[in-house]
C-alpha cells in the first residue's frame, strides 16, 4: 500500500496505537514507515489524531512512556457496570508511602518511617511493587546498605502523567515551612542530638 497524504500516515499511526498493548513512543511510531517521516511530522499527526478523537468516548493521551488510547474517566461509572469486581482501594498507609516515594525519591524505608512516624509494613511496599509503581533503584551507601525506592514509568502512565513534574504541587505547607526559620530548627535539632549523645 502506498502512503501519499499525511492522512494516510495518520491512519497507520491510529491503527498501531489502537492495536498496541502498551503506550507507543514517537520513536516507535516512526519505525512504522519504510522511510522515517521524522519526529516532528509524527508529533503533528498525533496532535491531529488527538483533536479528531476529542468528541469520543475514548481519548488519545500522552503519557510518560508514549501515546495511548484510553477511555474517558467520565464514562468509567458505566464501564464499571460490566466488571465483575471493583478495583481495590488503597489504604492510607499505602497512599502516604507512595506519596513520600513519589515526592522525595529516592528514599529508603527508614526515610519513609521518619516522615510517617510509624514502621512501614512490608506489605505496603509489596503492594506498590507488585502494582509496578515503585522499584528499587539502588542502595544508600550507609551501614546496612538500605534499598532506595523510586517510582516507575508505569506509575506515571497509570496516573496519566508525562513526568514527575506533573505531580500535584505540594501544599502551601512549604510556604509555612519557609516562615519558620529553618536554620533555627536545624540548630535546635543538632543541639538536641548533641545532648542525647
Amino acid at each position, binding site marked *: 500500500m502506498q502512503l501519499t497524504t499525511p492522512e494516510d500516515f495518520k491512519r497507520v499511526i491510529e491503527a498501531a496505537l*489502537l*492495536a*498496541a*498493548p502498551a503506550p507507543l513512543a514517537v520513536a516507535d511510531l516512526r519505525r512504522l514507515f519504510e522511510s522515517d517521516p521524522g519526529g516532528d511530522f509524527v508529533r503533528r499527526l498525533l496532535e491531529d489524531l488527538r483533536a479528531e478523537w476529542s468528541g469520543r468516548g*475514548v481519548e488519545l493521551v500522552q503519557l510518560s512512556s508514549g501515546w*495511548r*488510547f*484510553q*477511555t*474517558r*474517566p467520565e464514562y*468509567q461509572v458505566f*464501564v464499571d457496570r460490566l466488571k465483575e469486581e471493583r*478495583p481495590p482501594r*488503597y489504604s*492510607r*498507609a499505602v*497512599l*502516604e508511602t*507512595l*506519596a*513520600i516515594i*513519589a*515526592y*522525595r525519591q529516592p528514599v529508603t524505608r527508614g526515610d519513609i518511617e*521518619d*516522615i*510517617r*512516624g*510509624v*514502621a512501614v509494613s512490608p506489605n505496603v511496599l509489596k503492594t506498590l511493587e507488585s502494582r509496578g509503581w515503585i522499584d528499587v533503584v539502588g542502595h544508600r551507601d550507609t551501614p546496612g546498605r538500605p534499598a532506595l525506592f523510586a517510582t516507575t514509568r508505569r506509575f506515571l*502512565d*497509570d*496516573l*496519566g*502523567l508525562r513526568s514527575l513534574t506533573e*505531580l*500535584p504541587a*505540594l*501544599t502551601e*505547607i*512549604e510556604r*509555612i*515551612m519557609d*516562615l*519558620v526559620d529553618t536554620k*533555627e*530548627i536545624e*540548630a*535546635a*535539632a543538632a*543541639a*538536641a542530638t548533641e545532648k542525647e549523645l
Partner: protein
Amino acid sequence: MNLPLELAPLETAAQMQAVARLYGEPLLQLPADLYIPPDALEIILEAFEGPLDLLLYLIRKANLDILDIPMAPLTAQYLVYVEAMRSHNLELAADYLLMAAMLLEIKSRMLLPRPPREREEEGDPRAELVRRLLDYEQMKMAAARLDVLPRVERDFEWVSVFVAEKVVERLPEVSLHDLQLAWLTIMKKARLTQHHRVRREELSVREHMSAILRKLEDGTFAVFDSLFDPALGPAGLVVGFLAVLELVKERLVQVAQNEAFAPIYVKLADAAHDA
C-alpha cells in the same frame, strides 16, 4: 465491644482524679474544643496512621497554631488517647509511646526555667516536633491528592482493539531459490534412504544364511570357497562370511579342514540334516 461501659468512668470524679494524676493537672482545664467525646474514640483510634497523624488531628481539630503549640493541653489530650487505646487493649505500637515520651520531654523543657543564654542557644524545644508534623502533613495531603488523580482501572481503561491473531500472523517469504534448495535437499535425502534400503536387503546376514543352507541342502560337503559369489563385491562377501560364522554358532553347519592350508569343507550339521 463494651465501649460505652468502659469509657463511662472517664467522666466520674474518680477517673478524673486518675487522669489528673497522670498529667499533673486536672483534665477539666482543657479547652472545650480540644475535648473529643469518648464515644468517638473507638472509631477514630483505628483510623490513625501513627502518632504524628494523631497529633495532627488533635492540633487541627482544636484549631491550634501549629507554629506555637500549647504543649500542656496537647500532651494531655494525646495521653488521653494513648490511655484509651491501652484500656481497649488495642495493640499500642511503640511509636505511640515514644511520641508520648517526646511530648513530655518537650513540655518539661519548656516548664523548666533556664538561664537566658542557654535558652538562646537551644531555641524552641518544639521546633523539631513542628518540623516533623509539617513534613508529615505535607505528605499526607500529597497522598490525598495523588489518590484523586485519575488512575487506570479505577477511573479509566486502556483501549486496545482486539486484533485477530490470524491477521497479524507473519507468513515467511519464499523465493524461487529457497524452493530449489528445498527440492535438492529432498532429493539428496531420498537418495540416501533409497540406498540404505537396498543395502539392507543385499547385506542381510539372515538371507545369506538361508542361501548357504540351501546350497548345502544335499547334505554333502561343499568347498568353503564355493559358498561365496565374488560378484556380490567385498560387502557381500563379508556378510556371507558372517552368515557362515552365524551358522556355525547356531550349530547348523559343520566346518572341517584336514590339515593346515588344506581346502575347507562345509556341510550341514547332522542334527539339522536329520530334522
